[in-house]
Every structure is written in structure tokens, then in C-alpha cells.
């Protein structure tokens, strides 16, 4: 059972600037194939926590363990280690712009598989599969930069999933998507989870909670975890929802 733990965070704090914490004393465990949802008001540190989980920034204090290894900036400066970790973790950014850098959608999706060392034909096969799956065939040869926000998001997801990571981190994935694409997104995430992927997702939308979360972590304005529980219990707890700006006081249920 111990082997099925993906993440373990102990007493993790982080701040971008002195005396202005972004995260404080975070304790957290995430199991393999779990769907964890991060909820909380703007600026509470959801994106920051996700970046720490992805090994992109490093805790100022405390301990971050992923796949039984400590994640530190020292460890990540070992190329072999960093490469292995990045293959295991995929991160879909809140702002897709910063994640797309190739000249065509096809190249964009092939970038990961190719750097992983797959052959050109294998990489191409993966890209084509994903283009089929996401239904963006008509965009395959466009430049990613000229797409709409929602289309960029789909390309970003395809590009991240192309390396078949074990953990997928989504930062507000449904933002800016039309209802049909939102539905597609939810189904895709759940499908990925069914294949055994661990999902860590940040959002503000309560309506997706029942179908997207096995467990909910609520971060408060104080940058600490104020709740860590099953979705049913959190949804019933009006005080926590109010604290996290997830409902406004006029909301009644």
C-alpha cells in the first residue's frame, strides 16, 4: 500500500517575496490514481502548490516527496532525475500561451514524444491519435499561436498527454471553454483517470466537483489548507465554501 502513494508533502511553505507567503505549512498526501481537486479563492496558492508538485519551483521549507524520492532543486539539477520526473508528471498551465512554442500543432504534440526518444513514426502516430481524439484535425497544420483560447487549451492538453505521464496536473482547465468543450474536458480527464492516471486539478467551479473529485483540498485566504475531505462532506459545509469564496453569501442550497 505504501508504494501507491504518489505525493507526500510535510510542512511545506513557499513565498515569492519576503514576508508575503504564497503557501504556508502544507501537509498533504496524494495516492496513485486519485482525483484530487484544489479549491480556494483567487491568490490562495493553488497554482503555486501545483508548480511545487510538478517540480518547477521548490519549497522554501518543508519536505516534498514524489514517487518515494525527495524533490529538491539539487535533485532536479541532476538531468537524469529531472527527465525521469518530468516524464511522470504532466502539467497543463492556466495560461496555454506560455506552454506552446512550436510552429505547428502537429509539431507541438510531437515535441514531447520526440524528446523522450521515440522514433519519428511513433511520435507521429501518437500525435495523430491525439488529434483524432481531441477532434482538432482541422488545426493540425496551423500555428498554435493563432488559435482561439479554447483551441489552444486542447492543443496544450494533447501536447502534455502525448508523453503519457502518470500524474496530470490541470490548472483551471475548464476556464474559457464553451459548455460542449467543458464536457469534453471532464470526460477526457475522467477517462485518463480510468487508465490509472493521478489527477490534480485546480478550479473555482463547484458544479464539476461531484464528477471530477475523489477528494477535495480547500486552501484558504491564509494560504493554508482549511479542509481536506470527501466531496460530499465539503459540499455540505457551507462555512468552508464561504471561506473559500466558492459561494457568495446569497447562495442557498
Amino acid at each position, binding site marked *: 500500500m505504501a508504494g501507491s502513494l504518489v505525493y507526500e508533502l510535510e510542512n511545506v511553505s513557499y513565498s515569492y517575496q519576503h514576508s508575503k507567503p504564497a503557501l504556508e505549512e502544507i501537509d498533504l498526501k496524494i495516492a496513485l490514481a486519485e482525483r484530487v481537486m484544489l479549491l480556494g479563492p483567487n491568490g490562495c496558492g493553488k497554482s503555486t502548490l501545483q508548480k511545487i508538485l510538478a517540480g518547477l519551483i521548490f519549497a522554501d521549507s518543508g519536505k516534498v516527496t514524489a514517487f518515494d524520492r525527495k524533490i529538491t532543486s539539487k535533485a532536479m539539477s541532476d538531468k537524469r532525475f529531472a527527465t525521469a520526473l518530468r516524464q511522470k508528471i504532466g502539467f497543463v498551465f492556466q495560461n496555454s500561451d506560455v506552454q506552446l512554442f512550436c510552429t505547428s500543432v502537429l509539431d507541438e504534440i510531437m515535441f514531447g514524444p520526440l524528446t523522450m526518444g521515440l522514433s519519428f513514426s511513433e511520435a507521429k502516430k501518437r500525435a495523430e491519435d491525439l488529434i483524432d481524439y481531441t477532434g482538432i484535425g482541422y488545426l493540425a497544420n496551423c500555428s498554435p499561436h493563432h488559435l482561439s483560447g479554447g483551441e489552444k487549451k486542447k492543443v496544450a492538453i494533447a501536447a502534455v498527454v502525448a508523453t*503519457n505521464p502518470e500524474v496530470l496536473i490541470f490548472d483551471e482547465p475548464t476556464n474559457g471553454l464553451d459548455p460542449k468543450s467543458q464536457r469534453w474536458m471532464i470526460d477526457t480527464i475522467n477517462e485518463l483517470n480510468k487508465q490509472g492516471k493521478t489527477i490534480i486539478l485546480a478550479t473555482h467551479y463547484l458544479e464539476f466537483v461531484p464528477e471530477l473529485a475523489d477528494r477535495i483540498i480547500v486552501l484558504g485566504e491564509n494560504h493554508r489548507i482549511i479542509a481536506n475531505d470527501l466531496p460530499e462532506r465539503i459540499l455540505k459545509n457551507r462555512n468552508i465554501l464561504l471561506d473559500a469564496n466558492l459561494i457568495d453569501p446569497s447562495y442557498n442550497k
Partner: protein
Amino acid sequence: MQQMTQEKFPQWLQVKNELLLPEYKRTWLSNDYLEKMLNKINNALATDSDSFNTVCNRAILQQVEPHTKFIGLLVLILSAALTKNMLYLVGLNLVTFGFALQSGIRCSIFFLRVWLPTIMFVGITVLPGIINWVTPGEAMCIVYSGINCNIGSTISLPTDLTITRQGVQAAFFVIFRSAASLGLVTLLIKTTRWSILTKILVKFGLPATIVAVLDLTYRYIFLFMILLLEYLMGRKSRLVGAESQSAKIAWIGETIASFFRLAREYSQEIDQAMQSRGYNGEYYPVSNIKLRLIDTCFGLVVILLCYYAAGGNNGWIFSI
């Protein structure tokens, strides 16, 4: 429908990657220097703009009405430039330092902002002035005397080299004046919100366009810094293999290009967003100035200091 998705779902995505992470080897090389440097710059900038918020409420200068503070500190800078009273200059430096500490500016920052540049730039340029070749006068310390030293046949050095009282005095004046002015400017910047400061500058006659450019540059720097950091991270998160050296070099070019593209797209959007909010390059001055007791006290302190600067037998520079 569900069945359809099931079928379309790529086979290879169902393969589990069960490789363990390797033990990492210690290396002294760290390859995220670019990010680290950007982070540092970003933090330095952010500390500047945010210092106001992190400061304790007891700080006096934060509570003084910005216009009063601006004029008051300007007058003090002028007094430092004009006074011939050494004691006053030293005192002014001490008062400035005291206010800095009281306003929550850390010693190290004050030193970095005020004394380091003073000593480096001013100190080095005025140092030659202390010897008798440049500033003739009463000798305080004799380096050599009565030696004939010739370089070649044309140049001969003076027979004496002494450090003169007048030279040292002049050097001290320059150094302490610069330090006082820098210190006062630091106080002004660190205790006033940037947005208010720029509006005051417009009010006091700096052309609005210059201030608008200053203001925008400041905002853009932040935005682009964060954008660039995110961009580097966005790419790093997708680097799942070793890159060849040539790919790395290509990447630098790519990064610059992509970043300029991003920056352009964003600045267009910012511009459009600002225009849609009615921005036309003009600033509206801060309205309703209310003077309170603390402002009056501040004004009195400034007047008192100026009186002292002008008083004694070493009065204003003009009085001679």
C-alpha cells in the same frame, strides 16, 4: 457515446510507466541560472513596489500626505545641496537613516541604495580632490615633501604631496550631500505608492507623457517578467528527455522569438484594454488633499531643519 470515446482512446495511453525515479547524483552545476536571475530581479522590483504594504502602520512617513511629503523632502534635498554646515549634513544623514528605519526599510537595503553608490561613484571621483595638487591648502598629512620627481624630460611632479584640510572638507561635503539626497529620494520612493508618486510628478510639472511612459514601463516589466518566468516553466515542464547541444542553442533563439511574439500580443491586448477603459495618455491628478496634524508636524520639522541648515557661522552657500 461513451462507447465511442472508449474506442477512440489511444492504446498507448493505457500503458503504465512503472519505472522508478533514479537516485539523483549530486552536481554542483545548476542549470536554472536564468530562472534564478529572473526571479531575483522580479523580487527586487516587487519589493520596491510592495514595500509600502509590508511596512508597519506606525511608520510616520507613510502617513504624511504625499504632496506635503514630496515638497518637504524636496526642500530638504535642496537644503543639503546649499548648506555649508557640515554638522547639519551629518545630522541630516542621521535623521534620514532614522526615518528609514522607522519606515521599515531594512539597514541592508538602505546601505545598498544610499551608501554603496555614494562611495562607489562619488567617493572615487572626489578622492583625488583631497591632495594639494588639486585643492591647495593647509596640510593635514604629508605624503612626501621636497622630492624632485621627473617623468621623462617634460613632466615633473610637484615637490610636495600633501592631503589638505580644504580638500578633505570638500570631499566630505560632496559625499555627505550625495548620501543625504540619495537617502531622501529613497525615503520618498519607498514610502509612497508608485501610482501616487507618478501623479504627483505630473502635478509638479514633469510632462505627462514622460510619466506615463515611466509608469507603463514599470507595469510592463512586471508583467513580462512574470510572463517570461511562466514561459520558461511551461517549456521546462514539457522537457521529457535529454536535449542535444544544438537543440539547446536553437532553443535560445526560439525562446527570444516566442517571447517577443508573446510580448507583442500581450502589449496589443493591454493597449486595447486600456483604451477601452478610456485611457488616452493623460493622468488625472489625485483629488482632495487633506492636511492633518501629522502633516503639519512634518512641515515644521522640515522648516526647523532648514533653519538649522541656514544658521550658525556656516550659513547658506549664498551668504558668502
